């Protein structure tokens, strides 16, 4: 990319940018096999896409609807962009048996939860019971959602 006049950001290696004649910028974001192009100029975007096509085989998905598992909703009139993870969240809820019948709670946590090592299982029966539960899988899925 640097041969095409693009500069790689020193602080985030996934970002490349190039200054256009009208002082605006075109940005190219790469993340493994996901790619996003952002610019005010449609002509420049098409030019960059043509350039990339000569070097790699790539699939054109049009306006960005999703990036690394997050959905993108744009409202051009209001000038807003929303990122959601609805699909991923629905998938993990389904996987761990939370369905339409479950009543949602309105707070992320309640004060009566006091977590410490002292509430770890003590008896063998308790240990056996906990071993059947996918605790680590759930926590892992939640941490993935978080970052």
């Amino acid at each position, binding site marked *: 990319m640097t041969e095409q006049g693009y500069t790689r950001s020193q*602080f985030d290696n996934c970002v490349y940018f190039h200054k256009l004649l009208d002082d605006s910028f075109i940005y190219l974001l790469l993340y493994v096999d996901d790619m996003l192009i952002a610019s005010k100029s449609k002509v420049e975007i098409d030019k960059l896409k043509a350039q990339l096509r000569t070097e790699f085989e790539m699939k054109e998905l049009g306006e960005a609807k999703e990036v690394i598992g997050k959905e993108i909703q744009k409202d051009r009139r209001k000038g807003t*962009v929303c990122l959601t993870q609805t699909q991923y969240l629905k998938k993990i809820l389904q996987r761990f048996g939370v369905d339409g019948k479950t009543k*949602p*709670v309105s707070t992320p946590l309640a004060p009566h*939860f006091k977590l410490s090592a002292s509430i770890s*299982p003590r008896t063998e029966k308790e240990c056996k019971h906990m071993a059947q539960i996918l605790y680590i899988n759930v926590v892992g899925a939640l941490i993935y959602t978080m970052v």
Partner: protein
Amino acid sequence: MHDSGKGHWQTVKWILWYIHGITNIGLKFEGDDRLGQNLVGYVDSDYAGDLDKRRSIAGYMFTLVKGPISWRSTLQSTVALSTTEAEYMTVTEAFKDAIWLHELIEDLRIVQKHVDVHCDSQSAICLIKNQVYHSRTKHIDVQFHFVREIMD
């Protein structure tokens, strides 16, 4: 993560039930002509929030164009002796991130002179501004005084 008990599982279930009601909620970014002034940080800490080792929890978030872009909530690696100290260490962590984010957006040619970081502890703010030097803060390691240097 290991040795989880019934209480831990109850908590995780509660979180799942909460998420169940909020799957449609997401991050919203609003375009603004005054783009430059918009990288803002918010800091808070939970003093001795970890019941096992009494370490504090550090949390901070940065917003750009009215939406959050970088956030972290983590157990501090050292034990803080006061809320001020917990907050002070959190500010340090946030500043480190702020420097990186500031440089990143500058690289992307979003011009911003400085980054505002908000903190709800007056005593931590005073400590950063070097208005008090209390004997209780003496043991805070030199690395945390790096915050003062940035303020200057």
